[in-house]
C-alpha cells in the first residue's frame, strides 16, 4: 500500500530524482546539438577541458548547496577561495612546506566561516548581510597580505603542483578529488543523521527547535563547512595555477549560487541536492564552452548565454511541474 521510498526517505525523494532528470535531459540535449555543430565537442580532450573548468568550483558548489539547504547563503565564497590561496601562498613563501601551508590556509578559511557563523547564530544577523561584510573584509585581508601584488609560487614543489596539474591514468587529480567530494557529500546529505538535521533546520527552523535540534549549532557548522570547502578549493587553485592573485574569485559567488539554484536548491531553505547543483554548474560550463567552440562573437556570447540559461531553467521548471 505504501510506495517504497525512492533513493531517500526525504520528501524530495522521488521528486528530487525527477528534478535532476529534467536537467540531465537538457544538458544531454545541448551536448548532442553541440556534437553536430562542432566536431571538437565530443572529444575526450574537450570533455576533460569542461570537467577541469568546473571541477574546482564544483567543490565550492557543494558547500554552498548545504548552506542553502539550511536556509543560509554565502556571498563570501569568492573571497574565501582567494584568501586560502593567499594565506597558503604566503605561508609557503615564508618557508613552510606547502602541505602544512595548505592546512593552515584551510584552517584559516574555516575560521572565517566560524566568524560568520558567530555573527549569524550568536549576534543574530542574517547570512546575507554577514557574508556580504565578510566578502569585503576577507577580500581586504587578501590585499593586506599580498600588498596588492600576485604572489608568485613558482617554486612550489612538483609533487604539490601535481594535485592541480597532474593526472592519474589520464584522469586529472582535480577531477578525482571533485568526484570523491561530490559523491561523499551527496551520500552524506541523503543518509547521514547530521545532515538530516540540516534539512530539518532549513525546512522549518522553529519546528526543528521544537524537535530538540540545536538549530544554531547546525547553522554554525554548515557555515563553517561552506567556508572550509571554499578554502579547500582555494588551495587546489593555488596548486593548479601556481600563483595567488589578490583579485581571484571576484564575482564567483553569483555563479556558485546560480548553479545550486538551477540544480533545485531553494533560497528559502529546506530543499536541494548536491547532484542537482553539480548539474547546474555543468550546465553553465557547457554553455560557456559551447559558445567559445562555436566561435560566437564576444559581444553576443553573454546574451546568448543568458538566454540559454533562462530557457533551460524554464524548461526544467516546466518538466517538473508536469510531473509533480
Amino acid at each position: 500500500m505504501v510506495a517504497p521510498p525512492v533513493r531517500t526517505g526525504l520528501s524530495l525523494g522521488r521528486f528530487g530524482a525527477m528534478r535532476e532528470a529534467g536537467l540531465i535531459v537538457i544538458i544531454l540535449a545541448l551536448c548532442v546539438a553541440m556534437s553536430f555543430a562542432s566536431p571538437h565537442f565530443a572529444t575526450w580532450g574537450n570533455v576533460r577541458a569542461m570537467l577541469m573548468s568546473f571541477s574546482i568550483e564544483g567543490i565550492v558548489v557543494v558547500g554552498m548547496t548545504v548552506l542553502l539547504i539550511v536556509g543560509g547563503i554565502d556571498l563570501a565564497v569568492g573571497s574565501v577561495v582567494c584568501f586560502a590561496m593567499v594565506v597558503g601562498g604566503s605561508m609557503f613563501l615564508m618557508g613552510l612546506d606547502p602541505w602544512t601551508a595548505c592546512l593552515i590556509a584551510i584552517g584559516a578559511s574555516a575560521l572565517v566561516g566560524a566568524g560568520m557563523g558567530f555573527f549569524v547564530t550568536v549576534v543574530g544577523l542574517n547570512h546575507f548581510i554577514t557574508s556580504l561584510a565578510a566578502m569585503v573584509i576577507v577580500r581586504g585581508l587578501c590585499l593586506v597580505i599580498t600588498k596588492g601584488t600576485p604572489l608568485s609560487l613558482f617554486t612550489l614543489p612538483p609533487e604539490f603542483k601535481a594535485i592541480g596539474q597532474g593526472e592519474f591514468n589520464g584522469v586529472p587529480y582535480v577531477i578525482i578529488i571533485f568526484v570523491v567530494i561530490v559523491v561523499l557529500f551527496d551520500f552524506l546529505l541523503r543518509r547521514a543523521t547530521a545532515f538530516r538535521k540540516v534539512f530539518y533546520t532549513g525546512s522549518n527552523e522553529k519546528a526543528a527547535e521544537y524537535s530538540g535540534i540545536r538549530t544554531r549549532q547546525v547553522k554554525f557548522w554548515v557555515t563553517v563547512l561552506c567556508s572550509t570547502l571554499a578554502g579547500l578549493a582555494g588551495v587546489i587553485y593555488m596548486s593548479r595555477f601556481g600563483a595567488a592573485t589578490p583579485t581571484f574569485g571576484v564575482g564567483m559567488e553569483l555563479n556558485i549560487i546560480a548553479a545550486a539554484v538551477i540544480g533545485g536548491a531553494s533560497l528559502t531553505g529546506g530543499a536541494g541536492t548536491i547532484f542537482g547543483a553539480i548539474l547546474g554548474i555543468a550546465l553553465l560550463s557547457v554553455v560557456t564552452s559551447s559558445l567559445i567552440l562555436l566561435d560566437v562573437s564576444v559581444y553576443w556570447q553573454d546574451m546568448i548565454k543568458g538566454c540559454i540559461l533562462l530557457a533551460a531553467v524554464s524548461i526544467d521548471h516546466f518538466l517538473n511541474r508536469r510531473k509533480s
Partner: protein
Amino acid sequence: MSGGNVLEIRKISKHFGAVQALAEVDFMLERGEIHALCGENGAGKSTLMNIVAGILAPSSGEIRLEGLPVHIGSPAEAQRLGIGLVHQEIALCKDATVAENILMAATNARRAPLMNFSELNRTAQKVMNRLAPIPVTRRVGALSISNQQLVEIAKALTLDCRVLIFDEPTAALTEAETQALFCIIRGLKQRGISIIYISHRMAEIFALCDRVTVFRDGRYVSTDRIAEVTPDHVVRRMVGREITQLYPEKLAGEPGAPLLEVERLSDGAQFSDVSFTLRRGEILGLGGLIGAGRTEIALGVCGLAPTTQGSIRVDGQPVAIADYTDAIRAGIVYLSEDRKHSGVFLDLSIAANVSALDLRKLTRNGLVDRRLELTQAITLCTRLGVKMGAIGDPVSSLSGGNQQKVAIAKQLSVKPRVIIMDEPTRGIDVGAKSEIHKLLRELAADGVGIIVISSELPELLGISDRVIVIRGGRIAGEVTGAMTEEAVIRLASGVGGNFADVA
C-alpha cells in the same frame, strides 16, 4: 426544485496526482441554513471548500450559484460572487496589523488611492470586539495562535457574503469564544446568509446546525436534518463503524510516585509562581481561557522559553533544563499547539517528520537507518490512522487533521517519560480522537506521565484524572474527583471561590 438552494455542487471530483480527494460529490446548500459538513480526516471537506472558494480547480463537475452555473477561478472571483471562507489553516500576514488583516479584502477593493488608517482601525476594532477584545493595532505575528484564529474569523465577517464557510473555526477556541462565534453565526443566518460549518465536535454541530452532510473517503454519504439524527448516527456514517466509548477508563487506583515536580516556576512576564506535581501513570489536564498562559508554562518547563525562577525535578532529581534538548534528554517532550509553524516540516516527507524528534534511535554508524525509519513511521501512522498517499510524500499533501496526527506520531516515537500535549486533538476526527485518547491512557498505564492542555472542555474532563486551572498566569485551582465543566469554567474565569479546591 432547486429554488431554495443557494449553492449546488454536482458531481465534483478532484485528484492530486494519484490521490483521489473527491469522487463525484454532491452538496446542496439552502438559503439561510447552517449546514454542517462532517467526515473523517482526509474525507475531502477542505478540498471541496477550497474548490468553492476558488483556491483549487476541480478536476470535473459543476458548481451552481443561485441556480446558475459559475466558474470560480480565483479567490477574488469567489469574493465577487459572495462566497467567503474561514480557512482551516491560518493564513494571515504576520507583518501587518490585526486591523489590516481583518479588512484586507476591503482594502483591496477600495478605490481611494490612500489608506485611511484611523477609519480602518475603528472599523476593524468594531468587528473584532464582537469576538474578543484584541487590540487591532497589534502585529498579527505577536498574537498567540488562538488569537490568530479569532482574527481569521473576524476577517471573514467583514466580507459581504451570500455563502460563508467555516472550516473548523473552533479547533483552537475555548468555550467563551465559541459561544460568541455561535451568536454571530446565528445572527448571520437571520440576515439570510447561508453557512457551511465544518467541525469534528458533534456537540457544536448539534447545537448550531440545521442539516448535516457526511463525506467518507472523498464520497458523498448522506444529508439529514439535524433534528432527525443523533450524534452516534452521524459518527457511524462518518467512520463506518460504531464508536462505543468516547473516552477511555480513568486511572483506577492511586497514581504512582511523583515524576515531574515543578516548583515556583516564573518567566517574569506571562506566568509566575507555578507549582504542580505530575505523578507516574496519571493524565493531568491544564485548563483555562485563551491567553491564560498554559502554553507559556509548558514552554517554560521544556526549556523552549526562558524562565526566571523556579526549579524542576524529574523522579525526585533536580534537572537543569536550558534548552529543549536537555528536556528531551530528561525524557520530557512537548507537542506544539501551532502545528504549521512549529509542529511539522511541511516540505519534508511523512517519514522524516515522524523521526525528527529522536534521530539517535534511528542512527547506525552515523547514518539514518532508513528501513528502521520507515518501519517506525508506518507503524505509528497506521496506528493513528493517517490517511496518506505514500510515506515518502510531503506532509503538505495531507489534510489538516492528518498533519496533526503526524505531529503526534512524532512525539510518540521517542518513548518519553513525560508528554506535554498542547491541544493534541486539534482538528482530529472522532474516530482518531478516541484512538489517541486510548493510546495516551495506555502510555499512562505504562508509567508515563502525561499533561494535556486542551481548550475543549469535554475532552479535558474526559481524558484527565485531574485538572489544574490556570488564570492570568497563575494556578487558580484544581478540580478532582467528579469533575464538572462548570467547576473549571468558574475557576478559569475567576467567578466564585478563588484559589479554592473545588472537589
